[in-house]
Structures are given as structure tokens and as C-alpha cells.
């Protein structure tokens, strides 16, 4: 998967040990805008499925335009972190060994920058 406009943002998330993928995703379409993933991570599937879950979570919690949400899916073999607002979200795929606290903060910071810069 080639990276482009959001390379620096993605690098800030990918630098932590145990992070196997970082994606900028268009929430409505569930499509990858930009991303970096390790071999074995199906970025498009992560984007599509996690975006669908994220949209449902936003609807369930009454998120309005301009209101961000973060979502964390914690499973036995890994985690997915999503932080976003409106059209775009930052997603990270983590192994269990990853420091979730640091990754969570990195994803949030990156998502804040994403919300400020918007689509490029």
C-alpha cells in the first residue's frame, strides 16, 4: 500500500512497537485514503469493516457534525483504534504486545491534526 499526503501522520502512529497498520479512512465509504500496513494486514478490509462499526457507534451515541468519537475494539489477538470526526478517521491495528496507552494517544493526536487539515 503506497502512502502519500498523510505520510507524516501515519508515521507518527506506526513508529510504536506492535502497531501493524495505520490508515486514514473515508468514513462514509469505508475506503482507504492513505495507509501503511505490515504484510498480512488486509488494509481495505480493516478500513471497510471498522468504518462501518465506527459509523454505527457514532449514530448510537448521537454524534453530530463536528463532534469527534474514538472507538477501541479490544480482542484476544489484537486491537483496533479509531479516532475521527465527520468525514475522515485515523485507524490503527495493534498487536497485543503494543502499548495501548501510547498508541491511543498517538492516534488521537493524529486524528486531531487530520481534522484540522481535512482532506488534501
Amino acid at each position, binding site marked *: 500500500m503506497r502512502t502519500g499526503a498523510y505520510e507524516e501522520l501515519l508515521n507518527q502512529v506506526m513508529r510504536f512497537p506492535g502497531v501493524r497498520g495505520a490508515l486514514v479512512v473515508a468514513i462514509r465509504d469505508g475506503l482507504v485514503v492513505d495507509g501503511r500496513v505490515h504484510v498480512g494486514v*488486509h488494509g481495505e478490509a480493516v478500513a471497510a469493516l*471498522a468504518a462501518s462499526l465506527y459509523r454505527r457507534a457514532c449514530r448510537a451515541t448521537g454524534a453530530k457534525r463536528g*463532534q469527534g468519537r474514538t472507538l477501541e*475494539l479490544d*480482542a484476544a489477538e489484537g486491537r*483496533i483504534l479509531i479516532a475521527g470526526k465527520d468525514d475522515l478517521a485515523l485507524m490503527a491495528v495493534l498487536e497485543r504486545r503494543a502499548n495501548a496507552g501510547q498508541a491511543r494517544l498517538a492516534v488521537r493526536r493524529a486524528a486531531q491534526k487530520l481534522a484540522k487539515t481535512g482532506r488534501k
Partner: protein
Amino acid sequence: MAGSTRRSLQELSAEVAANPNSTAFVELAAAYRERGDLDRAVRLCLRGLQRHPTHVEAHYELGRIYEQRGERELALDEWGIALQLAPDHLPSRLSIIRLYLDEGRPADAARELLLAREIAPGDASVAELWSKLEPMRRDGDGSEDAAAPVGLFGELKREYPGTLGALLVDATGQLVEGRMTPRGVESDRMLGVTLSGARAEAERVASYLQLGDLRSVVIESAVVRLTMSAVGGITLIVATACDLPAGQAARVLARARELAREHLESLGK
């Protein structure tokens, strides 16, 4: 930072410039913060944390910078991380308490002060903050308590201030037990139905992406954190205040799961 032994800005800058791995960036960031150069202070701290991600004082300092910039949520995040790394780090705990007192949140402040008192029983700063808290608690109208959930999860809120409520929802979306403060029962039912659907979808995601069994799903807004997990085939949804440190929220969830399990066993589920 120490007064008489404080180094000059030039000395600190030179040290950091000569050695990017130096932890002097923390002291330098503090110096910039005190001068009011907050943007530079933030950049310095963030860059330093890239090399030293577990540096407790750096997280604490970054929290102070964010607080001065008015970014209170980010400040709480940083102090929360400092406490995750070092639960006995009193300055971070006291900073959180001061912020809660400023925002008129006596229950949250009280919770943190109890922890601070355990760490440092005779500390003067802790005593001072208690004295500020007492009038607020006397003057409180108890509105938080008036909306407190009763029944199964009432105990949870009494044990853990910062808990907003909890629900148990079955596979069909029916409410089994619980209340979300200050929502009414109908709102609780709607929330239960939509969120139990979200948990089911999360299970599908975890399965398709081969992440193993789902443990929990957490949804966070600016104010509330909702944590969903399964207890048997029933969905447990716990709501906590967003600024409750993640470790504390995990304790709330664990206790809620215990209460839920006991309740479901008593119902024969």
C-alpha cells in the same frame, strides 16, 4: 523545577541541540512555558517524547503546557499517562485535582484526593486541596446523588465516583437491568438496542480480521466513555466520565462484570 540550580535557557538549548537524546528537553520546555512560549514548549516536549515515550516528567510537563494553553482534555490525558507509568507521581495527581476543583467537580476531585492521601498522607499540598474541597461538598446540591442509579449498579457508583451508569442488555436488545444517569428508562432501552447491535458488529469485525475473541468495545466522546463487553450472552454497557483515567475505568468495568455475573447467576441465566 529547582530554583537555585536552574540552568539558563541558553545552556539547556545548547545541551539539547548537541545531544538530541538528552532528557534536558523537559527542563527546556518548562523554561519556555514559564516564558509564555507555549508553542515552542509543546513542540519540544512532543519531539522529546518521541525518543523517550515513557518519561514521566515529560508527560507531566506536557500536561502543564496544555493546561496553560487551555487544552484541558489533553492536559488530563498527559497526566493520566504519567500516572499510568508511575501511579505514585503526586504532581500529576495534584494537577488533576486542581483542574477538577476549578471546574466545580467535587466528586471527581474527592476521588483523586483519596488516592493522593494514600500516596502522601502528610503532604501539605494534599491537605490544602482538601480544605478547598470541603466547602464545595457542603454546598453541593447532591444533584449527582439524586440521579444515581439504584439497584444492581447503584453500588458501582458509590464505590467509584465517575461512574455514570451501567446497563445489561440481552441478545434481542431487551433491557435486563441497570440505569444510565441521568437518562430515563426509554432512553436506556434505545441505547441498549443500538449498542448491543454495535457489539455484535464488533464481534464480526474481530472474527473476519482474525483478531480472536472480542473482549470489549469502548466508544468515547468528549464527555462520556461507554465500554461494552459480554457477560455470558448478555451485553454489559458501562458509562464513565471521559476524564476518568483508563486504569480506573478498567477497575470500574471489572467490578461491573462481577456484579453482572452475580445478578445473572441469581436469575438463572
